């Protein structure tokens, strides 16, 4: 017999710790290539440990926030692993779904889908969840279904599924301020709106954001929300900027440690802007933050989600802050590296100035390619391994812009990193623009795609062996990834003559 009236869940590609390596989760954004789908899914998103009720030890952070908000409001709410929803059919009145990328329209899923012509695993996995006997039964019982999370907007492009699966409400944006009221209405059987977009004026205050009650995937802890840079393709920049106080961060790290997670993965759009004034880093706040983390996690790993390349360069050149943080705190114990996602997006100063003038600040956008190179050199020196994104097909992009991106990738070859190309997806202030489609792909785009592939496969082996997948327990994962990389290289070599033919003349 279940006891939760509100069940929060998502599909396997989200409900996983990805073998303790966040980056492996990205494999779920593509279709299974060269491997059976089940094996691919295991590689990207193995099942998580759960208790008797099906509550996962680790769960996506955003869902943990909603769960905490509902528990604090007195509801019987819990995150339940997708394989265990059936245990709560008796008590369930609301089924809440969360996802980054419900239908694989986000980057890079949409790109793999376009290139391979095959549905990405995350989309297939979510559809399986929605068509599972447990979800069907819940629907038949009259359970209300509410879908949210960063991928909520994608429902607007999948209206048939929305209807077929009987979703009652789709909610997009920061929900802490509104979710309790919505749940009260749903439980009282009041009619719900079909769609809510929570704008910046209804963004929650720090006091309204609860401390998570259960562990987050790989110890992820949010240290700030929003971003001051204002890039036009990015939705995060629309959120009001707020810094999470150290005492709250400490509480959340402790929640994770108590659940058996060994480290902390800081989340922010730019970790180095914690406590900053505009784009001016605050060394004192950053050192305090990292010292606190080291004190709490001991020898456990400290991770970063995202960095901005201009902040890396500026923080190091003005304060020596990168080497200080790395040598004195992060690499002081057993830790040998730190990974982070960074956005190159373009190698063209013209395009950088047009769509992301704030990304280079405090440097002028005309200097963007130099900033990228300098930041990569600093990161290489300091054992920071970036997974960098490039955006192809940004509105206003010219062939010359793409050539400049290709040239920049050539200059980044000496630096240990992964570079992942992404096709433009209409988001942020560009969300009304057209998608980048297969018919828009030009020879210059193919050159960039190949260069990123060669760059990333060149460095991947070293990153896997020396840093990311060390140890015996990681051997099967490493072996499968090595096979996958070799298979991709082989396929691309075979495809090259066809590509040459396609763009001839």
């Amino acid at each position: 017999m279940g006891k939760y009236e509100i069940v929060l869940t998502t599909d396997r590609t989200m409900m996983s710790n990805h073998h303790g390596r966040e980056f492996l989760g990205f494999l779920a954004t593509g279709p299974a290539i060269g491997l059976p789908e089940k094996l691919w899914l295991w590689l990207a998103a193995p099942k998580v440990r759960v208790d008797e009720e099906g509550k996962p030890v680790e769960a996506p952070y955003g869902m943990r926030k909603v769960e905490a908000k509902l528990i604090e409001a007195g509801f019987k709410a819990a995150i339940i692993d997708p394989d265990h929803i059936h245990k709560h059919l008796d008590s369930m009145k609301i089924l809440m779904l969360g996802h980054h990328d419900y239908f694989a329209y986000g980057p890079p899923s949409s790109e793999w889908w376009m290139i391979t012509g095959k549905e990405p695993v995350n989309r297939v996995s979510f559809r399986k969840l929605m068509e599972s006997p447990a979800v069907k039964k819940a629907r038949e019982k009259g359970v209300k279904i509410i879908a949210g999370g960063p991928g909520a907007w994608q429902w607007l492009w999948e209206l048939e599924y929305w209807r077929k699966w009987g979703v009652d409400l789709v909610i997009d944006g920061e929900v802490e301020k509104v979710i309790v009221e919505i749940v009260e209405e749903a439980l009282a059987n009041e009619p719900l709106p079909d769609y809510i977009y929570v704008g910046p004026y209804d963004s929650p205050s720090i006091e309204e954001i609860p401390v998570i009650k259960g562990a987050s995937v790989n110890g992820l802890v949010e240290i700030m929300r929003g971003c001051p840079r204002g890039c036009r393709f990015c939705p995060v920049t629309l959120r009001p900027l707020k810094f999470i106080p150290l005492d709250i961060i400490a509480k959340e790290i402790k929640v994770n440690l108590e659940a058996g997670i060994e480290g902390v993965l800081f989340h922010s759009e730019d970790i180095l802007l914690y406590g900053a004034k505009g784009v001016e880093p605050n060394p004192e706040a950053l050192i305090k933050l990292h010292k606190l983390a080291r004190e709490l996690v001991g020898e456990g790993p400290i991770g970063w989600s995202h960095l901005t390349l201009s902040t890396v360069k500026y923080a190091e050149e003005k304060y020596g802050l990168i080497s200080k943080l790395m040598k004195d705190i992060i690499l002081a114990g057993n830790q040998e590296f730190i990974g982070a996602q960074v956005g190159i997006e373009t190698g063209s100063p013209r395009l950088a100035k047009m769509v992301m003038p704030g990304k280079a600040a405090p440097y002028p956008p005309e200097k963007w390619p130099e900033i990228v190179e300098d930041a990569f050199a600093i990161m290489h020196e300091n054992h920071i391994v970036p997974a960098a994104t490039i955006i192809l097909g940004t509105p206003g992009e010219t062939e010359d812009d793409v050539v400049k991106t290709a040239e920049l990738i050539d200059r980044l070859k000496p630096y240990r990193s992964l570079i992942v190309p992404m096709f433009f997806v209409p988001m942020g202030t560009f969300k009304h623009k057209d998608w980048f489609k297969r018919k828009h792909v030009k020879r210059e785009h193919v050159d960039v795609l190949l260069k990123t592939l060669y760059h990333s496969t060149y460095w991947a082996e070293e990153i896997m062996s020396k840093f990311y997948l060390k140890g015996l327990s990681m051997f099967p994962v490493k072996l499968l990834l090595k096979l996958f990389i070799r298979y991709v290289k082989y396929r691309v070599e075979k495809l090259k003559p066809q590509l040459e033919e396609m763009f001839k003349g």
Partner: protein
Amino acid sequence: MSALEDKAFHIVLITKGNVNDRKVLDKMLSCSSLGFKKFIIHVLTMEDRPLYFEKIRDIIFENIAFTLIIKYHKMSHVNLNKFLNELRSKPHEVIEA
């Protein structure tokens, strides 16, 4: 939805075909200068739920600044009159687009 709908401006959108999203967005913009940052759009349409979003998707995608609450009502005179009565004391506007 008391708190969520508090201080919202109501737009009754009557639509029989393709929606002129500009009309709605301009209304939202002009109301924002009066202090409204939240809009409840009551869509009266012959289309089924949730397929009507096909017609109003651009309104949602063009907006980034304001909170939007979208409610569906099957098109009928009874529904329209009921609404207008309910909204009498609230700031609202009827838009045929």
